[in-house]
């Protein structure tokens, strides 16, 4: 008669390399779980499902020609394909940005400046009266920025200048929520160009009145 099969533990010897690799896998798995959890609870964490760099950022940029300083300092219609139907961004240079800043319509809200940098940089110095709009945390700024943008005729969006893409991201978000493309202008020289033109910057909150010539 056959003896019934018995279950006994079988020890498999694992070499030191195998043990270390197994431990590395354990660390990697635990590390990934920890990382995702930490990102989730961190107030600065990224939203995993969001596309932070939508395709529109890479669209062409068209320069806008100045047409005077009477009622509207810049005419988007005068830009090639500036009918509002085209997808390309409209850009303005430092001179045009300064012109808009000193336009009487700025105070009436027909012209608004939108700062697309993060809070830290905004507080350190922004175009006086510019709205803060970090495109990576839009939900935080939409309630303030959207009504102003809807009421405005011309919206100048800027970031640091140079190769920074945050102004395009911000403009794209504004366009997605219904702000007409013809109203949006990218100031590509950004705050760096602004300060090099010896224009004033405001530190702290919007309309704080703390003006200076250099960024803190």
């Amino acid at each position, binding site marked *: 008669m056959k003896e019934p*099969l*018995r279950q006994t*533990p079988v020890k498999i010897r694992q070499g030191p390399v195998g043990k270390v*690799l197994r431990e*590395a896998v354990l660390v990697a798995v635990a*590390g990934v779980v*920890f*990382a995702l959890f930490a990102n989730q609870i961190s107030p600065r964490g*990224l939203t995993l499902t969001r596309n932070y760099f939508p395709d529109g950022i890479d669209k062409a940029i068209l320069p806008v020609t100045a047409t005077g300083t009477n009622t509207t300092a810049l005419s988007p219609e005068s830009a090639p394909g500036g009918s509002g139907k085209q997808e390309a961004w409209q850009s303005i240079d430092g001179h045009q940005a300064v012109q808009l800043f000193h336009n009487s319509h700025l105070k009436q809200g027909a012209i608004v400046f939108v700062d697309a940098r993060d809070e830290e940089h905004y507080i350190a110095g922004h175009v006086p009266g510019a709205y803060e709009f970090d495109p990576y945390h839009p939900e935080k700024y939409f309630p303030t920025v959207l009504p102003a943008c809807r009421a405005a005729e011309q919206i100048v969006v800027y970031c640091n200048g140079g190769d920074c893409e945050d102004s395009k991201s911000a403009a794209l978000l504004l366009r997605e929520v219904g702000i007409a493309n013809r109203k949006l202008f990218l100031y590509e020289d950004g705050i760096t160009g602004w300060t090099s033109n010896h224009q004033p910057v405001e530190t702290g909150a919007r309309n704080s009145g703390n003006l200076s010539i250099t960024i803190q």
Partner: protein
Amino acid sequence: MTDDYPIRRVAFVNLFTVLIRWLLGAIFLYLGLTKALHPVEFLKLLRQYDLTRDALLLNFLAAGLPWFEIFCGVLLWAGVAVRGTAVALSLMLLTFSLLVLHRALQLHAALHIPFCAVKFDCGCGTGEEFICHKLAVNFLLTALSAWLVSGRGKQFCVRYSLVRGSKLPRTPDLR
């Protein structure tokens, strides 16, 4: 030479290894925190490598890597799963050194400047750096991580090894 020379030598090597472990732990903790506090900046820097067009994967890397570094830094500091952590860090360092090298070669070709004059922010948490310096530092960190795998310096560890030997599921006894 005295009789206790080998013992003193072993003690010295162990102490040296413990110091390396703490140093690496502190470095990774610092580098991880710098990135975790500014995840958007890290995301932008990571994007320059053109690793993927998939937003979810890119976000996953940008969100996860800094905290993974912090996790490994804490493990090294506390002395938990030291060799496994060191292997994970070595592999990560090696991978990112290759990516940084690839990016530097692209810039070198595009800008027509000497290779060691290439300077950019690789997203490593240390800002803009000359490529040769960056690669040398990464090589040193990889070598130090690999040293920790050697199994020396088990002092001051909460739990040096997590894997003590493995038992597989029960199999039939055919006696």
